[in-house]
């Protein structure tokens, strides 16, 4: 195939090998890993910077205003201006706060968020860690970030921070279930938990035109929808950003943080968003694969970037459009709508896989049954849940 030998496609790996060629073989592994780490930090750090700018510009345009456009051409230097501001702000730590935990919370959060970048395949040979159980590693690292949220809320010695931290934890834990459950059918269909294996299982085109990505199956579309909603909630994005909403509990668990530590929290949130989008691209959208055979000359990491940016713009679009949910509304959504849907989706995926051999006139029947199995419970559950507008009952916070 033309692509595997094209220069642009192999450029990152060739560059890395050229840079470490002078080292002995044992040190080469270490240098390779270091270069991978630096590359990920650089790329995603810049992506974070320009994502904040893109978010403000898109939000501005949706709200019929230009967004930041003073700092350089079209506001392109705005992220760096924000960075300088954050770095030069005074770091105020409450005297009664738990100093060690207050300091460690953003560190732990950022450490585990960056760990999740290690298993995402960014291109054909561009996966930093090729693990056999990569998906479990990803979700283990992202669920360990919740500890840091708690540490931040408790160490601040502030009642509002504590309440907000407990609400944030309730939200994060509730949405972990649909997140994980929506990935189980993917493991069922592809037979592997390795991210490179999942991408490889989505290779090829049906009738030479339609890619075999999992999102183009009924259960895959439903799983993708559940995954994206849960990813919105896991990264505390609007409409699930109650934990950090200024009008609710001041800034939530981040109230007592200022300057660089606040910036670190937001960096961790955006990194979480990027990592979850990257995982969604890997699991459902075919990873780094091109949508059409004719477009394979474009390098694989470019396709990954295009898909990732499309999902991130979706995140920003949703933030600009939907209002915020209350804590009882969002936990209700998780437990009463998304978890049953994800479980039914597992059954649908099982049916889809077992009926893969149906021929001829049975194919439309297969599609019809799968679509009914996906849409039926969604409609029924959605109707019966109601709008959640009503008197609130708070139990503990």
């Amino acid at each position: 195939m033309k692509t595997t030998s094209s220069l642009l496609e192999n450029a990152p790996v060739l560059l890395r090998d050229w840079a470490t060629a002078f080292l002995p073989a044992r040190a080469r592994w270490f240098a390779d890993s270091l270069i991978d780490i630096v590359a990920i930090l650089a790329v995603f750090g810049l992506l974070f910077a320009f994502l904040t700018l893109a978010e403000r510009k898109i939000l501005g345009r949706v709200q019929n205003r230009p967004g930041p456009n003073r700092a350089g051409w079209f506001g392109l230097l705005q992220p760096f201006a924000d960075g300088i501001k954050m770095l030069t702000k005074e770091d105020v730590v409450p005297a009664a706060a738990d100093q060690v935990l207050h300091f460690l919370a953003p560190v732990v959060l950022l450490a585990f968020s960056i760990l999740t970048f290690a298993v995402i395949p960014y291109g054909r040979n561009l996966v930093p860690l090729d693990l056999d159980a990569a998906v479990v590693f990803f979700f283990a690292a992202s669920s360990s970030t919740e500890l840091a949220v708690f540490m931040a809320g408790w160490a601040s010695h502030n009642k509002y921070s504590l309440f907000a931290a407990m609400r944030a934890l309730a939200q994060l834990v509730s949405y972990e279930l649909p997140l994980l459950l929506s990935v189980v059918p993917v493991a069922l269909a592809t037979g592997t938990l390795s991210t490179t294996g999942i991408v490889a299982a989505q290779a090829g085109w049906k009738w030479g035109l339609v890619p075999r990505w999992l999102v183009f199956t009924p259960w895959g579309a439903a799983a993708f929808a559940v995954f994206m909603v849960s990813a919105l909630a896991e990264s505390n994005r609007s409409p699930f950003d109650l934990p950090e909403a200024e009008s609710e509990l001041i800034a939530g668990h981040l109230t007592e943080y200022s300057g660089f530590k606040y910036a670190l929290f937001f960096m961790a949130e955006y990194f979480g968003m990027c990592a979850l989008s990257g995982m969604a691209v890997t699991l459902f959208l075919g990873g780094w694969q091109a949508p059409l055979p004719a477009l394979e000359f474009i390098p694989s990491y470019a396709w990954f970037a295009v898909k990732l940016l499309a999902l991130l713009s979706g995140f920003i679009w949703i933030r600009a459009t939907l209002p915020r949910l209350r804590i009882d509304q969002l936990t209700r959504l998780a437990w009463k709508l998304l978890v049953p849907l994800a479980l039914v989706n597992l059954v649908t995926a099982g049916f889809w896989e077992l009926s893969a051999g149906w021929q001829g006139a049975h194919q439309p029947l297969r599609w019809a049954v799968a679509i009914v199995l996906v849409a039926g419970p969604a409609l029924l559950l959605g109707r019966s849940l109601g709008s959640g507008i009503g008197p609130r009952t708070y139990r503990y916070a």
Partner: protein
Amino acid sequence: MNAILLLIALATLGTAIVAMSGRNLLHSVLLLAVSWSGVAAFYLWAGAQFVAFAQVLVYLGAISMVVLFAVLLTRRAREDFGAPHNLTTRSRFAVAAGAAVAAVLLWAVSRSPLAGSKGPAPTVTVRDLGRQLLGQHAAALLVIGVLLTLALIGAVVLAAVDSPDFPEDAP
């Protein structure tokens, strides 16, 4: 090889000892979370990757959350976090019992002629694990599923508020 094992063992045991003897309950819980991640590091060193990730996912991501919530929901005032740490008779006997158990176990371990294999770690792919879980151990898997469901329902029933008996806890 052994150096890494000693490092992991020291870190895990150290944080466990400090956690079990600490005054501040919350610090104990967080230090114990570090101890559990030390155990996960041991699993990684031994080559059981899937178990290591499952350990982090379950212990650090779920059990610590439950314990932290319980700590927060069961405190009266700030001072109540510190458990009074005078060496009572009970704690003296407990330390003696722990030391005795450790001594007996270490003596037994050191005297056993264990023929440890010198080869590389056995590789268990996730596929093999899945086949074993759903094949040979399918009954145990189903029982665990039922057990977890029952535990979930039981925990909710136990912890839910009964308004008539405890009016101050009602919303």
